């Protein structure tokens, strides 16, 4: 049976499927945030699916997804009085703003699945997946470090790539690439 139908059959009954998208052969299923651990257990334990390997875990910030892209002005032959083009309409900010994407793999059938969870700016907490797969340990710490999304129940939720006192969340779209002048200061005792 098609992967899409199998996933629908497994997750559909409990209303776990919010949306399903296919892109160039990659299937992506969005599930509600509060039931992510149950969904993962179902996907792992149901025969016919058997997604038993967590390949990766990442965060995405959708703040600028609907931002209008400026088109370069076309040069007119006369070179005077450039016509104004219609600005593409701003569809408004995407809400919820953040996403946590889980990339799963079925070792037996070599099938991949993306599971997405949307996180609102007002409630940035997701249940941790470490009881299901230990592989979620550092990726969740990195998502916390880069976006500020907390994982409830994580054994050691600290910053991973930046230093502990770093004051911001770098991969958010409103944080500038060159930083805001943060520096690390350590005082040595000697």
């Amino acid at each position, binding site marked *: 049976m098609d992967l899409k139908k199998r996933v629908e059959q497994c997750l559909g009954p409990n209303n776990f499927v919010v949306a399903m998208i296919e892109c160039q052969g990659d299937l992506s299923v969005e599930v509600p945030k509060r039931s992510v651990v149950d969904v993962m257990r179902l996907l792992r334990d149901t025969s016919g699916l058997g997604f038993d390997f967590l390949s990766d875990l990442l965060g995405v910030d959708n703040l600028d997804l609907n931002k209008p892209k400026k088109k370069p002005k076309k040069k007119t032959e006369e070179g005077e009085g450039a016509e104004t083009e219609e600005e593409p309409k701003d569809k408004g900010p995407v809400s919820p703003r953040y996403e946590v994407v889980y990339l799963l793999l079925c070792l037996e059938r070599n099938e991949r699945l993306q599971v997405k969870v949307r996180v609102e700016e007002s409630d940035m907490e997701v249940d941790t997946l470490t009881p299901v797969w230990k592989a979620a340990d550092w990726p969740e710490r990195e998502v916390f470090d880069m976006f500020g999304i907390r994982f409830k129940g994580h054994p050691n939720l600290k910053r991973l*790539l*930046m*230093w502990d006192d770093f004051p911001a969340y*770098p991969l958010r779209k409103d*944080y*500038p*690439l*060159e*930083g*805001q002048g*943060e*520096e*690390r*200061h*350590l005082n*040595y005792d000697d």
Partner: protein
Amino acid sequence: MATEAYNGGGWIATKLEWLINWGRKRSPWPLPYGTACCGIEMMCALAAGYDMARFGAERPSFSPRQADVLIQAGTITLKMAPAFKRVYDQMAEPRCVISMGACACSGGVFRTYSTLQGIDKLVPVDIYIPGCPPRPEALLQALLMFIEKTEKSQPITHKKHSDLLVGT
């Protein structure tokens, strides 16, 4: 004759300096501070193909107290910067810093929130080697420049090694 030594010049002082420089230039012990891709090219320079050991850099000293040259090969991030500064501070004079690679010279390709835009913001650099990564021959040339500089230094008549300009 001997008292002239402390005012600059004097036969004994200059001959003694020549002897000290001869000893120092023949054994520049590097501290290979390799963090990123340039570290691999530095490794190739230390290995059999390009062989830095024939210039006296036989013993890569990871202990800063016993090293003469700190070869910074690779990006220094803001998280790493205090550790790097601490290693530099622990080195004994006369010391020299070679900044190998674009990332060490100026941040390189990585103009981002977490990369130090050049180690000369933290420590005084003597020799810059551009390249991403520079060839091992470029590192050997830098070592030869260090040797030239040591030949011309004046450890007795000048108090500070770092007073001298590169290339003079």
